[in-house]
């Protein structure tokens, strides 16, 4: 049911006899690859079959079967459907899987994430440290047999809350009256803690230049409290004078356990949580999650709701890009004035969200099979006024003010360049990828929903510098306005929900990967259901997280002052980076 024929098409089992088997579990697709043949297989995929883009790596803990599985999703940057392959290893420590960093460097941060949360050792990984939790944290929290301090039950709804509602505070059940737990016999007074040592050790590994004066290098920490890191992001840089010689992003300061909580939640409960991933683009996150679950449930949304979804997703893209234009200009030195112009327009979009969904930012608007409610009276007229009249004018106005500005041009052009090859290599996505000259847009490469009915251009720029990334955003806003205009014109009448409203949905067993072109890039939701009310695995392929893989390489060699601009132009949101 969930196995589209094309996913099964590339059959390499004849070439690697005995090493590759089709995944025949009901509802699953793709290939199971033997651990020993993984590297060979990946090289063949990349070099001979054109699967040059590693989209997502994640792990799944099959506790009852005693297996740990690593799931890879690869795509072709020329477009088309992807390929899923998996490696299964016995669930006995040490769990070891060969690292794919040498083949797909975009795997670096994702493999670190799998190590941190699942304890899978990727042999050959250049810098396998914990990424979200600190060094020294006890256990690998996403394992199914690891329980958080406030653990109640495996899945919601908890018996303590429903149906009787005998609610007690979580603190009262914990030994320390707090969200903490320690290993047995732990004595804090007898030891010192240094969670930073591994980071500083890994910062010391870089190519030292032998030419010129021998100067001391200094380490500078930027963040987690810094006005231009867009949240609680931290960068540790090694400087030679003004020049960056090594850089490591440090994250996890907003790691709020989205996936662990998501696996306790029922399927529909996760919808409001997706809002809080990329909190500047909640409608897009809803979209991706709804698509993944609809794939599993085999539900088709109604015609009207499809159009409403497109309108909402494109409005989200515009509001996100407006926010980016404001913050990037802040970072480039135009303190707050462009931000005021951009936010003025963004507020108008938020007004529509508030009228439609009831909340400005956390919309929680999509449902499986449609959207939560229809447009209230007057909203459609408001959208028409905005996108046929005001926005096309205002975007040109902002563009006119900014793009010819001398400071923006000199701080943007030629700075922080990411070449096309590197962009693919490091699995960059979204506007960040398209600014480097790769015309890859999920809306065109693998159209979802009804994007194939609309006329729009895939925006692309060729230089891959800060200025081009800014310009790509302007162009994308123009294209989004085009899509909204077409969608508003074609909006049919009819119901907005394909299913009856339900307290809980029934999701058949299987796996699904729903991906959308979010404002930051390819946003994917990998969900595994085992027929129970809660997902067995719920993983988010977060574009801002994976875009940061190339942050180090593009900054090395730049001046430290440009670091802020480069980070701003990548467009990260910490809710999504750390999840």
């Amino acid at each position, binding site marked *: 049911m969930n196995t589209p024929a094309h996913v099964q098409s590339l059959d390499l089992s004849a070439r690697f006899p005995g090493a590759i088997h089709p995944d025949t579990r009901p509802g699953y697709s793709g290939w199971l690859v033997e651990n020993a043949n993984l590297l060979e297989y990946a090289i063949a995929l990349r070099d001979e079959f054109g699967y040059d883009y590693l989209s997502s790596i994640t792990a799944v803990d099959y506790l009852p079967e005693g297996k740990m599985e690593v799931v890879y999703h690869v795509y072709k940057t020329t477009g088309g459907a992807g390929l899923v392959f998996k490696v299964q290893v016995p669930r006995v420590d040490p769990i070891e899987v060969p690292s794919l960093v040498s083949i797909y460097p975009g795997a670096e941060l994702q493999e670190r994430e799998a190590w941190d949360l699942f304890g899978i050792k990727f042999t050959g990984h250049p810098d396998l440290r914990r990424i979200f939790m600190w060094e020294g944290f006890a256990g690998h929290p996403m394992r199914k047999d690891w329980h958080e301090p406030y653990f109640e039950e495996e899945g919601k709804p908890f018996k303590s809350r429903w149906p009787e509602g005998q609610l007690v505070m979580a603190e009262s059940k914990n030994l*320390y009256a707090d969200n*903490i737990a320690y290993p047995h016999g732990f004595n804090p007074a007898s030891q010192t803690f240094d969670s930073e040592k591994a980071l500083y050790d890994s910062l010391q590994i870089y190519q030292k230049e032998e030419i010129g004066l021998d100067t001391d290098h200094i380490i500078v920490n930027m963040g987690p409290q*810094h006005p231009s890191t867009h*949240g*609680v992001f931290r960068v540790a840089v090694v400087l030679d004078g003004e020049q960056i010689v090594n850089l490591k992003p440090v994250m996890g300061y*907003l790691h709020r356990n989205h996936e662990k*909580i998501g696996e306790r939640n029922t399927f529909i409960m996760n919808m409001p949580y997706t809002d809080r991933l990329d*909190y500047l683009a909640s409608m897009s996150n809803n979209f991706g999650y709804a698509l993944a679950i609809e794939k599993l449930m085999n539900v088709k949304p109604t015609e009207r709701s499809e159009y409403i979804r497109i309108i909402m997703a494109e409005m989200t893209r515009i509001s996100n890009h407006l926010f980016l234009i404001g913050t990037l200009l802040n970072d480039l030195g135009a303190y707050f004035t462009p931000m005021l112009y951009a936010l*003025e327009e963004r507020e108008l979009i938020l007004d529509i969200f508030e009228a439609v969904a009831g909340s400005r930012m956390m919309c929680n608007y999509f449902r499986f099979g449609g959207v939560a409610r229809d447009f209230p009276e007057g909203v459609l007229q408001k959208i028409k006024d905005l996108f046929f009249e005001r926005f096309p004018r205002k975007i040109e106005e902002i563009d006119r003010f900014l793009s010819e500005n001398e400071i923006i041009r000199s701080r943007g052009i030629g700075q922080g360049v990411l070449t096309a090859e590197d962009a693919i290599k490091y699995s960059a996505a979204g506007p960040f990828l398209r600014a480097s000259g790769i015309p890859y847009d999920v809306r065109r490469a693998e159209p979802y929903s009804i994007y194939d009915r609309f006329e729009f251009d895939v925006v692309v720029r060729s230089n891959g510098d800060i200025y081009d990334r800014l310009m790509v955003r302007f162009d994308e806003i123009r294209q989004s306005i085009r899509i909204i205009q077409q969608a508003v014109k074609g909006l049919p009448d009819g119901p907005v929900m394909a299913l009856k409203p339900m307290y809980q949905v029934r999701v058949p067993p299987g796996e699904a990967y729903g991906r959308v072109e979010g404002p930051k890039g390819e946003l994917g939701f990998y969900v595994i259901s085992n027929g129970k009310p809660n997902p067995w695995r719920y993983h988010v392929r977060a574009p801002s997280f994976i875009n940061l893989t190339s942050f180090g390489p593009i900054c090395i060699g730049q001046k430290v002052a440009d670091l802020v601009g480069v980070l701003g132009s990548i467009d990260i949101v910490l809710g999504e980076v750390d999840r």
Partner: protein
Amino acid sequence: MEQNGLNSPEYEIPPELKAQVAITSLDKIYNWGRSASVWPLMFGLACCAIEMICAAASRYDIARFGMEIMRPSPRQSDLMIVSGTVTKKMIPVIVRLYNQMPEPKYVLSMGACASGGGPFKEGYNVVSGVDKFIPVDVYVPGCPPTPQALLNGLMKVQEKIRGEPIKTARWYKKGPDLAEIPVPMLGPDLIDPRKITLIQNGDKN
């Protein structure tokens, strides 16, 4: 000035001086000055920070309250707006920032997460409310609170400032209030130095 309640009515002011002279108490004029120039720390944690930025931007315009100067340095700020989920990895930084702020300082906990963990309370890396570590003056509910709600919270902070007499102000006194808050450590889990004996005895009980 009369609208602000600054001018005390119990003294007679000659009618010819009414336009030039105001008589007030030191408390009132001092607190009026402080409450009209609260500088928040430019410090965003999560989703709520976006609404905080919106409150500072075109439509809601925090500058009307004398608060538009957000300082990125804790040394120059009076008010910490804890805007978002506080994680275990972040709390040592927040405590350190709080310790670095000069008195008189205020903390506004913005949103459900900062006030009590919110929707992420059960998460293994989430602190159930910033008030487990630093004292909070005003809580603003919401997920996220709208900019209007934040402005209302800021007005509550101003109200609180106006109600503090200098004589008993805690930052002019010596006492436990002024002691620095011990910075939590990151061990196998978050370690609050104030709870060390509890942790040592934890397993035995």
